């Protein structure tokens, strides 16, 4: 894997006359957590979909795990992706779903079984793993989706609102898991509205507003930049930079 897990240059996405993403540059080092913030409709999901190869950029370039995103078949084995709605088959049980994905990821059976069991236990899903996903609560589906995304130890993990619908204990498990992953050299690209999660975990925060990256940097630096000499929170930074381009630090 290269030093840069994610690299984007002038990445742009247009739908007809509408510009969803305007020339954003990203450079996310391996083994780090990148907190991706922005108001609803700012273009966060579109950016993630371009980086996960689901959407073709209109212009610009991007590499993930050192592979051009235009080379989809080569990018896919290196990434895990949890979209806002976990991609699960409601008719399967969690264990069946995870075994299925492990098979598609070509994880050898004994290793897959061990990993599935460990992760199910870690997320307190072991007792419910043989129930159909259709009977799950939103939080249980979210946990299954997270396990599915990280099942193959991807180099780069894209998480879109991973703590959505989770109770505080499960949210804490997700945070701890992300911290563990990055300790093991994985990179996490994290989109969320839960600012304390980003504040706790992110090495770098980028704020997207109206399709443009309006500010980027370590959380502490951003907080200081928001108003020098005053104690500020990441929420203050977010509100300042997304109040309009003029408000960008």
């Amino acid at each position, binding site marked *: 894997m290269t030093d840069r897990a994610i690299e984007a240059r002038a990445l742009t996405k247009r739908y007809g006359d509408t510009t969803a993403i305007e020339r954003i540059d990203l450079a996310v080092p391996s083994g780090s957590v990148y907190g991706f913030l922005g108001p609803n409709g700012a273009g966060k999901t579109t950016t993630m979909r371009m980086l996960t*190869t689901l959407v*073709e950029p209109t212009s610009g370039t991007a590499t993930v795990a050192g592979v051009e995103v235009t080379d989809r078949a080569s990018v896919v084995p290196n990434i895990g*992706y949890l*979209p806002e709605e976990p*991609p699960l088959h409601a*008719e*399967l049980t969690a264990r069946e779903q995870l075994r299925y994905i492990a098979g*598609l990821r070509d994880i050898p059976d004994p290793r897959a079984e061990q990993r599935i069991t460990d992760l199910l236990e870690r997320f307190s899903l072991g007792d419910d793993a043989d129930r159909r996903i259709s009977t799950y609560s939103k939080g249980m589906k979210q946990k299954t989706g997270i396990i599915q995304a990280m099942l193959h130890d991807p180099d780069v993990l894209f998480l879109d609102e991973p703590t959505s619908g989770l109770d505080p204990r499960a949210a804490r498990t997700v945070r701890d898991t992300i911290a563990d992953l990055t300790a093991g050299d994985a990179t996490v690209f994290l989109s969320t509205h839960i600012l304390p999660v980003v504040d706790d975990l992110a090495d770098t925060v980028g704020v997207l507003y109206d399709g443009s990256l309006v500010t980027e940097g370590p959380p502490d630096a951003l907080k200081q930049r928001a108003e020098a000499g005053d104690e500020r929170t990441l929420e203050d930074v977010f509100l300042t930079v997304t109040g309009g381009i003029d408000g960008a630090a």
Partner: protein
Amino acid sequence: MPGVPNTHHAARIAATQLRIGWRKLRGKSVTHHFAVGLAVVAVTAMTPGITWVVYANAQSVVDGASAIGTLVPAGIGVVTVVMTAYLTVLQIGDIDVRDGYLTTVPARDVVGGLLAAGYVRVAGMFVPPLLVASVGLAGGVGRPLALLSAPIAVLALTTTAYLVGFPIGMVIAYALGQSAFVDRYKGALGAGAFVAYLALLLTDSLWTVAGPVIEAARASPVAWYTDLALITVPGADASALRAGAVLAGSVGVAALGVLASVRVSERRWYDDGAHADIRTTDSARGGRLDGVLGRPAAWVARKSWLRARRAPIKLLYVIYPVFVLFGPIQNSIAAGRVTATLPATLTLYAAWATGALFALNPLGDEGAVLPVTATSGVAGREVVAGLVAASALVGTPVSIVLAVVLGVLSPLSSVAVACLAVGGVVLPALAATVAAGVGASFPKYEATSMTRSREVVVPSLWSFGVYTIVFLLSAGIATGAQSPAVGSVLGSVLGVSTAVVHVAGLAVGLAVAGACAVVAGRNAVRAFDGYTADG
């Protein structure tokens, strides 16, 4: 090899798709199971018949004396291509949780899985009987080796046709997804296509369209599958060269079909689709209806119209009984004039359809909004009045026009036409009230899949059936009595004039339908007022 699916991944995806499909089927209602079971029984029952026909005609095919020899492969090929393309557009060409798959395995593997699962679904219903029929062929010609060559021909033909139909369906789906016009008017276009299909059936023109295609297939190498099937039968008019060529051609076409499927699927999934510009509209405004119905009932009516306009597919079930009208309509077309039975039949259908439009699932149709509606303070009678008004204001003008225009053009007497016109005025509102009462007793809250990506809540089968029976047995008296034959028979039995039978039939029919409507209306009001989420 680029573009070629990984067979291990494809097989796993296909197996899981089939397993999911089976579990979905098991989760359906008893009536759905019954319908599927009926289809399976029908196919199973037909198989011996098909086998016998093949057995009886086998020798004439072998002797080259039968046109069936070329017609059968051409027919199977064309039907398989058309059916596959159609189902690919609607169902088998896409996959649930597509984003999850496309970030897990290459798209080509997903396509491979869809192809395999789709083949089982498309061919599952007609390939097994054809394979069994191979026994009839082998028996008919007295050559056991035909048990080998005939199934190979069946599988080669259906697989090749399937792999031609799949990319064609994908191209159509892709083209549809690239058109903002289609995106905006897909409801109207779908309805138009359905009406065009009905018109073909009603006018017996389907063969006019399909005939040349099948004839072209007969004149093409598709007919050579007969050579392949009969190549093991000594004395048969079968060419080894043609048999070999069609087998090799099948392999080549199938390979190209897989590659084309992968290519077009990738374009369909990754290219930006066209979307009609999102128009900001505010069609829901108060108006004169408020003064007539009162504001709550008027808003219930407006809400029904708005939802129907934006999602017309949910009303598709209203068109299904049109097939029952085929006989009277075809008779009129064949006769070149409006027959005596047509005005009453269509007026009755128009009234029935009016009732079924908005009132047949008054609770379930509210969907997730039902708890809000139920706790909003609106009274049950206002909801029912709104639904009946929504239906009657749309359907009554249609039923009046059908009754009067067709009645005048038909050989019906002026009394019968007048009675039909009165029925056209009164019956739609009564129908809607009956529908509301029946629908409240048999609500359906679960959504039904209309296409892979579209689920809508439609009335329950029980509502549909009970409403239809009650309405036909009551309102049917009013319209049925306008038939000259009925009027004549009853008139002579009762010793009254035909005109008296027409008027009396109308009065009795309206009285019975009215009584049903009173009972049903009260039931609907009570059901809404007493609604609780736990049933």
